[in-house]
């Protein structure tokens, strides 16, 4: 599963630019086939990104739906050279930020410290059975990070976006993003060590 995912991600991140341009062109012409191709390629990625970012699968499903509807309503005005993945992740991420604001969660979004996350993912019995212990710990460590660090790690580490693209998604400069990513790596390493210590006790 892991291997196939990595291979699949490489295919996506290296999506032939010509194919991408042709998909955007066809989408501008309201071609449902092009939409399906984009949807099949990115829906699961977008869902995973938003589920890990928000810590709630229900919220992620709502945000994913809204993101696709935004794509459809903006399809006619898309630039011909639009890069689909960064566009989708930017919209999804912005929708999540709006969601946080609407729920009065600005504090949790901007804080540099570890905060309580009531919507933290509660794994289903199937997940519990299928996930191994280190995955569970890694997910827990990821969920414990402040959102701005979590999104940096998710975009680059999990979704395989280039740092420059991820910086654009987060709306910050590439240099600031590099610093944020470095801080995120340090934080998750701390979290990971903390979980490992807890596990050995």
């Amino acid at each position, binding site marked *: 599963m892991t291997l196939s995912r990595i291979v699949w991600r490489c295919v996506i991140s290296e999506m032939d630019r010509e194919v991408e341009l042709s998909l955007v062109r066809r989408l501008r012409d309201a071609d449902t086939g092009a939409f399906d191709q984009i949807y099949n390629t990115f829906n699961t990625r977008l869902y995973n990104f938003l589920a890990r970012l928000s810590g709630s699968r229900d919220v992620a499903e709502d945000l994913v739906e809204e993101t696709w509807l935004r794509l459809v309503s903006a399809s006619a005005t898309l630039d011909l050279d639009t890069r689909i993945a960064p566009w989708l992740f930017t919209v999804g991420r912005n929708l999540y930020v709006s969601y946080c604001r609407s729920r009065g969660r600005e504090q949790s979004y901007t804080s540099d410290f570890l905060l309580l996350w009531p919507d933290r993912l509660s794994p289903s019995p199937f997940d519990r059975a299928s996930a191994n212990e280190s*995955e569970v710990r890694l997910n827990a460590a990821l969920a414990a990070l402040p959102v701005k660090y979590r999104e940096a790690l998710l975009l680059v580490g999990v979704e395989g976006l280039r740092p420059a693209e991820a910086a654009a998604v987060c709306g910050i400069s590439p240099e600031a993003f590099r610093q944020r990513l470095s801080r995120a790596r340090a934080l998750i390493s701390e979290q990971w060590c903390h979980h490992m210590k807890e596990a050995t006790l």
Partner: protein
Amino acid sequence: MTRGDSLLDVLAGLPEWSPNRRREHAVRMRCHEELRHCAERRTRAAQRRRLVGWCFDASAALGACAYAAIVLHAAIRYALGG
């Protein structure tokens, strides 16, 4: 786990969660419908633009005809010595 690169490798290996298939299908269908509406709206807008263009051309042609008739009328009156 302390090195950044190995951390990213571990993150890349995180398992994938599958979205709800039923909802996925519903979203896809809704988006198809929206796309069709968008296409229809664009077609209607193009038709309106064509109609407006045709009306403009027709009114310009009528105006040119009226102007030609006035000029011709004046020329005839002048020729007849009126």
